[in-house]
């Protein structure tokens, strides 16, 4: 009879909450305890970085570096967050990034210059998202399986296109975009794109019918359907959105690395899922925030940065990353269970 596990929230959740909260509690509630706890984690990391490597860590260039390195996976994570909130999963993001980045950097594509590359990356991303979406929404495939299949075939196709070779980008406009001369008020263009995707993602999730439908589908798909929401179309759009984010991310990666390679986007799916989860997105759907996910990405990138600056090796980094995922989720559960 180990079945009698009580639900995470007490069975008496129906009882009336305590009387009118004072104003400061309302404010605190608005800021969301989860977000605050993530900011706390980030603050602790900044403290650690500042103490261990004051000169290298607390430096404008380092801030630029951390944000730049967060941009590519950050854009992917925004799309992934939408998908997870809707109760789905997209395991193919890394493979789509790889495919889009190699397709956009073939010799033929490069002849079309800057916009040819940008266009191809985005179209390939959206195209893969479309396939995922149609299979899941209209082919009634489980997202895990459909996107796993996409993962395998997109990686395969990327390998076929490149033959395992690194495709070096020669288009000046692309290369320029990754260099210091292109920084706008000290902000790298990649970071600007990341910021824009974040802001748009936040607005779409919180202020539009699309966002509401996403949450509704993830929270209770049957209820959403019976409330008159076109659940299938919404699912299709969500995987398209994830594909679009992968396309943008692929473009950023091309700019960042000046090349396209079939090994690009390695394990992005896991990084993006991990960032979304520590950001407070429920893997079962129905709840999640863009801010949380982006903070999750920044936490991971900052950890990597601090470890590299302190010359700690990959094995230690991986152990710490695992520990932080567990710690962040535990801390959140604790803070979430106290109002």
């Amino acid at each position, binding site marked *: 009879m180990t079945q009698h596990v009580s639900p995470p929230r007490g069975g008496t959740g129906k009882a009336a909450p305590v009387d009118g909260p004072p104003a400061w509690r309302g404010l605190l509630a608005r800021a969301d305890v989860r977000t605050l706890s993530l900011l706390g984690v980030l603050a602790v990391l900044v403290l650690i970085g500042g103490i261990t490597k004051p000169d290298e860590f607390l430096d404008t260039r*380092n801030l630029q570096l951390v944000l730049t390195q967060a941009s590519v996976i950050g854009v992917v994570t925004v799309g992934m967050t939408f998908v997870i909130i809707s109760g789905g999963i997209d395991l193919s993001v890394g493979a789509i990034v790889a495919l889009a980045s190699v397709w956009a950097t073939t010799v033929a594509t490069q002849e079309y210059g800057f916009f040819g590359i940008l266009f191809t990356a985005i179209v390939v991303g959206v195209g893969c998202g479309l396939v995922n979406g149609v299979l899941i929404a209209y082919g009634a495939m489980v997202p895990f399986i459909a996107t796993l299949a996409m993962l395998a075939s997109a990686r395969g196709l990327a390998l076929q296109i490149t033959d395992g070779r690194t495709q*070096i980008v020669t288009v000046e406009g692309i290369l320029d975009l990754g260099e210091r001369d292109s920084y706008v008020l000290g902000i790298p263009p990649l970071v600007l794109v990341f910021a824009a995707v974040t802001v748009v993602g936040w607005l779409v999730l919180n202020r539009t019918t699309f966002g509401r439908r996403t949450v509704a589908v993830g929270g209770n798909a049957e209820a959403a359907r019976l409330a008159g929401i076109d659940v299938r179309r919404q699912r299709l759009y969500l995987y398209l959105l994830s594909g679009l984010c992968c396309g943008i991310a692929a473009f950023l990666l091309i700019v960042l690395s000046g090349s396209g390679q079939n090994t*690009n986007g390695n394990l992005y799916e896991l990084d993006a899922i991990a960032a979304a989860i520590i950001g407070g997105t429920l893997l079962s759907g129905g709840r999640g925030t863009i801010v949380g996910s982006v903070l999750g990405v920044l936490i991971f990138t900052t950890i990597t*940065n601090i470890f590299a600056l302190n*010359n700690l090796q990959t094995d230690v980094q991986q152990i710490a990353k695992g520990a932080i995922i567990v710690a962040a989720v535990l801390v959140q559960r604790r803070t979430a269970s106290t109002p």
Partner: protein
Amino acid sequence: MTELTSRRGLLFGAAAVSAGAFLTGCTSNESSDDDKPAANDQPAADDKPGKPVTIGYAGPQADHGWLNAINDNAKKRAEKYSDVTLEVTEGSNDTAQQIGQIETLINKKVDVLVVLPADGKALTQVGLKAMRAGIPVVNLDRIFNTPQAYRCWIGGDNYGMGLNAGHYIGEKLKDKADARVVELAGLDNLELTKQRTQGFDDALKNYPNIKKVARQAADFTVESGQAKMAQLLQAQSKFDALWNHDDDQGVGALRAIEQAGRDDFLMVGGAGALSAFQAIKQDNGVLKATVLYPPTMAASAIDLARALGQGKGIGGMAEYEIPASITLYSAVVDKDNVDQYMSTGFK
């Protein structure tokens, strides 16, 4: 600024080559009249058609420039001989799948096997099986657990790579007091990465004025090379030399160096990619040399397999039998000798 522009010119050059000279990129083996002075290009046994030999070749999945060059070298070399039939399996990184593929080749009763295992230890048993079935095995690069599992091993020298890179950097910096070097290693899960690092560290022990101040591991991909190098550059505001284990990830590392606007150190690469050779030849960036881990070993492996199949030895050696083990030399390629190696560069 001029430095940046010219570097782009160089990258453009690389792509132009990629568009046109695709076939000649790896090895120039199409005809012996057209011989270029490539060090490896002398076939071991003689070129005259002999007894027909069927060689089974089981290579890895070519998801990386060097591995791709390995497969290419093997196939091109085999095409060169009218008496060689090459049975090529679909490249695989999956141990179980590769075992199955090799067993199929054994059942087909090929004359000789050339195997570059996904994992040397894990494929030892199937190597033994082939040998017991009377099929000599040429073990390429990733070595089996026991010499009983191969007739001849040919491969690169990871320790030697590190050693030669260390010596090259050591000689360049030997007059500099308190010199600082940085290492951008490859995938830390692999033993070869540890060997390369060990060789590098051992070489540097000869130069007490040099200190290795930082090491980060990338994973042989451009993306990781860029990311890890960017962190290293931020961590070390001043250093004199960088050793990068792999030219593929070096593309990303060079990109990070360019983005950080740094040119105050010398860089030594590893493996021998065409883009690296071209940069060395141009000599207007930080990349001054690269240490070879030549993919031409696959061509040599075909030569060895053919000689084994025909019962011949290697020209230039007194012994009748071909050696049990051949370790290639990890030559340092710099501006002075780069032309000689250009044709072996892989993409």
